[in-house]
Structure formats: C-alpha cells, structure tokens
C-alpha cells in the first residue's frame, strides 16, 4: 500500500455543507490492507434509530464482522463514532465513542472520550470513521474537510502521545488539528491500552489501543470547516439556556475539584477499593484528595468542546519527579486505581503514574487493578521467578510497573494483558484474588457497597462499566439527578441502599437505557439532563417528533443489540458474573462484612432477564427484538 498518496475527496450533502444539518450522512470507511477509502451513506432514519456513538458501533459490528473473530484479526473493525448531538450547541456534547471487538474481554469494546476530537470529526464531514484491515507498516489517517488520506507513520511509531501530537502538528502545519492516537503500549498490543485524544482524553477501557495497534494505525488526525447545525435550533436553545443559567449551582462539585474531589469521601464511604479489595481503609488518603492536592500540584483547569464547567485538572510539578502539565491531570478513577487500590498515598507518585498512563496510552482503571493484583501476588510469593517484585504502598514500584507494562518488559509483559490473563499463567489459586468481570478490571465503585452497580458490572457487554449503570448511592438520595429522572418516569424515589430489589431493577432498566442513549448521542454523563431535555435535543437536532418512550426504546435497542453481539461471540449467562473479590467482604472499614453472594447475584440477574424480556439463559426474545426493530440484525 502506498501512503501519502493524496487526499480522496467526498462530496458533502448540500444541507450539511450549507450548515443546515447535524449529520453529514457519511460514514468514512478505510481498509488499511489495500488502502481503499470510501463512504457509506446513511439516511435520516438510521440516525434516529442508532443515534451514533455506541449505537453505531454495535450496529456495524453485528452487521459486518463474522462471529468469533480474534480481536486482532484484520477483519475486526475499529470505529470512531461521534453522536447525533456531538458538536452541537448543547453543552456537554464534546464527546464521541470508540469501539470494536475488545482485545481484553473478547466482547464489545465501546469507550467514550471527551475533548475536541469528536466535534472536529463531524466538522471534517464524517459522522463516524470505520477502519478495517491492517497496514503493512505504521500509518496514520488524515481527515480534512470531507477528504481523507493514509499517511506514513514510521517516524511516529514509538513516540509518546505528546511527541506524536507535536510531530503531526508540525508535519501538517496546523496546531488546531485534533488527534486520536495510541501510545507505545497500544503499539505493543497491551490489552489494557487505550486510544488517547487531545493527549489526555482516553477511550479507556477494553484494550482499544491494542486493537488500533494491531492495525498498525498510530493516529487519526482530523480538521474541519463545516458547521454542525440543527433543524430546530430554538428547541435545543431552551435546554442550553437552562443549563448555562444553572450549571454553577448544579455542577459546582465539578467546577471546584472535578471528579478528583471525591477521593477521600469515596474512601471514607467504602466506595473505593483498597489494596486489591482486601482493606477497609488506607492511611494518608487525604494526600490524594483534590481538596488537598489542588494548591500544590494542580496548576490549571481544562475542558471539552462546548463545556463551560472545566472539570478537567491539569497537574504540574518540578522536583525529583517532574509532572508534565501537557498530559493533563487525573480523574477520580485514575487516583483510586493508581492510589488506594495499590495502597500508594504519595500524591506525586500517583499523579506521575497518571501522566505515564497518558503518555504510553494505558487505561488507568485496568492498569491500577492489574498492578494491585500483581502486588498481592508478590506479597503471597506467587511471582518469585521474576526479578521485579512490586510491593503494596511503593510509589516507585508503581511507576516502574507502568514503564514495564508499556515496554512489555519482564513481568510487565504479563501485566500488559491484564490481571485475568496473569492469573491464568500464575495459577495457584490466584484467580481468587481477581477483581474482574469478563476479564476486565472493576472500576472503583465497589460492588460490595453498590450492589446493583455490581450486577451491571456482571452484565455489561462492554465489561464492568460504572457509567452506563445505576449508581446505588445516588439512587438512595432524593436530590440526585438519578432520582429526578426516575420521578420523571413516575417511579417512587428514593431507593433502598442495600441489595437488589425489584424496585432497583426497574430503576436499573430505565437508567441504563438512558445512559446507553447518552453514550450514543454522545453526551457527558455529568450534566444533569433528564429525559425531556434529551427529547428536546433530539427533536432540535433532527426536526423529529421523538418522545420520552422513544429515548428509552433507543437505549433498549442498543442494550439488546450489544447483548446479541455478546451472545454471538460465545458468551453465555454463566459469564454474567463477578470474580471472587466482588464477593469478599472486608474485615474492617465502612462496609465491613458486606458483600453479595454469587447466588444472590444470580437470582437478581434472573429477575433482570425477565424484566428485559430475555429467557432464563439471558437471550433476548424474538418479540423484544421485533419491537426494537433489530430482528434482522439478530438473524445476521
């Protein structure tokens, strides 16, 4: 395949080119094996049905990939998918999804990232980019103003994310180009690697970086001139005006410290897993809380397209360990995974670990979980054959672990594929120390406290996911956004905290439908939008007559399509389960003695299957698939 061969130009729909449509109707297709570039044209009904983002990803995977592919098979698709609302005037829409078959789980990978990449992709003329095949040598994709080109990336291979972005900006002569890329970890096919955007915004989970690396694709650079416009601006303008008038009150938490402000609170309330799920508390947790690190280590704030909140932290430090602000700063999940999960309370070490993950392109959740698992294995003398022996609480070992993972060096070669695959190699009962579902590490919302989140971890087609889920502790507080949405549906609130009642399953059904809609549209979960806001946004975007029931049906469609994909790839109801640590109660701390049992989880799952219209084996019925208009996808 020849590279740097010139741009292939596509003609835009006149309405889109004139700035009168929120979608171009064009999905850019690229085959890296033969260098072919073309577009799929989609009509209005496609966007109303699948919305974009996760919906578009699962549609393409079901429709175009053969069952049971190895995730590194060139026929696997790597899909970049903004949503119908990405890049519109609505705050919180500076997001997009990335997906494919996961190298980590073997199931669906669909991660959402903030920043500017998604909006710029739509401005460049494409509603999504679907990439297949494998290039002979490293390449990157350059997309601009309705045209695309495959370019040589031999000189970029091996570069950290900041260096790669700098080089592409220099080469193409434009510092406003937005770049999705993998770091060295993705190049080495680490199954816990990510796709990074704007350097610090990760489509973090499920090993998407390895999928991109398997295609020899280093980056996708985008720049566009088209306006993403609306059919009925006034409808969306109402919601925009409301949020701009209220976000300083409703999102004050995000404006003050970002998600990092919850580190100590979550620790104190039993939300955060500590020491690979063994401990109830960690001394020095306050060292990691944004309330404390703000003055010394957080030097600035950052944001995403169309977002006035600016919840992203920018860390900086000069000393024995330098922290480069170009790599942004940590979220709660990153601090929790690289901090208390590994019993590390040194803020500089944890922030440096966060920087290294952004530089090498590693998922901070799975990296933290895998290092913590390794530390426990070392403590139990299960890894004596390796010279490197990382110990709990050792900040230097944390940093060295990340270096070794990114380089697949020694023990790092095992760690690069996540804790579940490590346990398969180690044996000796080490699987009892795993905190995973479908081989993916749990996020740091503890299922022993948040039982329905645990059910969501077990069920999710994308592996454990704390976002497209029902957060138990929010559903128990009447003032939360979740309770507002549930009352909008006529449901009684608040919910009881412990256990998984039918009431909780009903709430889980609606909340996961709503959030799968958000991940398809693609909208930030932090905004306090309710169903009616999304009704207005959809109708404003497309000039449609969508109602609340259609929003729910869209979410249901995407959940059921993802379930079909999961089953098609060989998963069964037996795989809807947590690993041992999800059921292992701590001896002390705020949730001492609390945990579900595998039996209680199975019983709750049976009630959930019935609510979804699925069989006892978790298979969607033909009636449900017919109602959601995906029966053809089910039949292949």
């Amino acid at each position, binding site marked *: 395949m020849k590279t740097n061969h010139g741009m292939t130009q596509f003609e835009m729909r006149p309405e889109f080119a004139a700035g009168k449509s929120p979608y171009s109707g064009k999905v850019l297709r690229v085959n890296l094996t033969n260098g072919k570039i073309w577009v799929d044209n989609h009509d209005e009904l496609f966007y109303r049905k699948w919305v974009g983002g996760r919906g578009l990803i699962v549609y393409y995977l079901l429709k175009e990939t053969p069952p049971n592919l190895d995730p590194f098979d060139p026929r696997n698709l790597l899909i970049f998918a903004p949503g119908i609302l990405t890049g519109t005037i609505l705050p919180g829409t500076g997001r997009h999804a990335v997906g494919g078959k996961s190298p980590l789980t073997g199931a669906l990978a669909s991660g959402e990232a903030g920043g500017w990449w998604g909006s710029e992709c739509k401005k460049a003329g494409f509603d999504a980019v679907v990439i297949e095949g494998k290039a002979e040598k490293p390449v990157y994709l350059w997309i601009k103003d309705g045209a695309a080109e495959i370019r040589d990336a031999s000189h970029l291979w091996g570069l950290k994310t900041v260096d790669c972005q700098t080089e592409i900006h220099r080469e193409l002569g434009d510092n406003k180009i937005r770049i999705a890329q993998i770091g060295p970890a993705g190049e080495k096919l680490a199954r816990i690697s990510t796709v990074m955007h704007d350097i610090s915004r990760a489509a973090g989970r499920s090993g998407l970086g390895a999928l991109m690396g398997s295609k020899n694709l280093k980056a996708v650079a985008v720049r566009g001139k088209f306006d993403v416009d609306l059919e009925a601006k006034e409808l969306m303008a109402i919601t925009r005006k409301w949020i701009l008038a209220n976000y300083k009150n409703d999102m004050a938490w995000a404006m003050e410290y970002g998600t990092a402000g919850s580190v100590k609170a979550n620790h104190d309330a039993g939300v955060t897993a500590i020491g690979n799920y063994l401990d109830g508390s960690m001394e020095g947790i306050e060292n990691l809380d944004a309330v404390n690190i703000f003055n010394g280590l957080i030097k600035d704030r950052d944001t995403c397209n169309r977002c006035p909140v600016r919840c992203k932290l920018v860390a900086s430090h000069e000393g024995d360990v330098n922290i480069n602000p170009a790599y942004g700063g940590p979220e709660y999940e990153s601090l929790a995974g690289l901090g208390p999960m590994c019993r590390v309370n040194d803020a500089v070490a944890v922030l440096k670990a966060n920087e290294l993950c952004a530089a090498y392109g590693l998922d901070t959740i799975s990296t933290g979980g895998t290092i913590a698992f390794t530390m426990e294995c070392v403590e139990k003398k299960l890894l004596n054959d390796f010279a490197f022996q990382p110990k709990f609480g050792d900040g230097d070992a944390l940093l060295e672990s990340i270096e070794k993972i990114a380089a697949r060096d020694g023990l790092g070669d095992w760690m690069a594929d996540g804790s579940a695959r490590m346990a398969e190699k180690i044996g000796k009962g080490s699987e009892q120390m795993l905190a995973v579902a479908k081989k993916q590490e749990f996020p740091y919302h503890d299922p022993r406290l948040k039982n329905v989140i645990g059910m969501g971890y077990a069920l999710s087609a994308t592996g454990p996911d704390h976002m497209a889920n029902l957060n138990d502790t929010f559903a128990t507080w009447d003032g939360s956004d979740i309770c507002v949405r549930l009352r909008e549906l006529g449901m009684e609130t608040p919910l009881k905290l412990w256990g998984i009642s039918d009431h909780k399953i009903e709430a889980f059904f609606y909340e996961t439908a709503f959030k799968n809609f958000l991940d398809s549209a693609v909208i930030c979960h932090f905004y306090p939008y309710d169903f009616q806001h999304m009704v207005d946004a959809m109708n404003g975007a497309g000039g449609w007559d969508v109602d609340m029931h259609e929003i729910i049906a869209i979410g249901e469609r995407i959940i059921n399509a993802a379930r079909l994909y999961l089953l098609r790839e060989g998963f069964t109801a037996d795989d809807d389960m947590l690993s041992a640590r999800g059921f292992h109660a701590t001896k002390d701390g705020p*949730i001492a003695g609390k945990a579900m049992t595998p039996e209680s989880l199975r019983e709750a799952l049976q009630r959930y299957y019935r609510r979804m219209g699925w069989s006892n084996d978790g298979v969607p019925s033909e009636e449900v698939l017919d109602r959601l208009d995906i029966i053809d996808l089910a039949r292949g």
Partner: protein
Amino acid sequence: MEKIKKEQSAHLILDKPLTTKRMDILVPATGTYRALLARFIIDPGAAYIPLVNGKVADLDGEIQAGDEIRAVAQIVGG
C-alpha cells in the same frame, strides 16, 4: 429552647466539601438519618452516603443516642 441532653443526642459532623469549615453539632436522637440530613443539606443534584459510627448506614435507619453521623458527598463517575 430546651437544651439538648447529651445522653439523648447524636453528633452530626459535616466537613469539606459540604462546608468550608468542619461543622460538629449535637442533634436530638430522634427520627431517621434521612430526615436529619435533609434539614442540613439542600444542594441540588448532590448525593450523600450516611456514615454512622464509621459504617455505611441505611438512610431510613433511626438515629440512636450517641451516634456519630457523617454525610459523605458523592461524585458520579470519573
């Protein structure tokens, strides 16, 4: 106003990010944790986990004399 008797009271502690300064007051040991916290926490969109004597408690539990009650602010996602 009748002074709260210590043996019939509970401690309510609210601290950052709920308040700029730590607040530690005696409250009557009557009613539920939910009702007590609703009097002091009115932030829209926020959610809290109640800790009673260091353990996560059911919000609908009854306040007992001698309880130390904390409300821990929750932040979604990340």
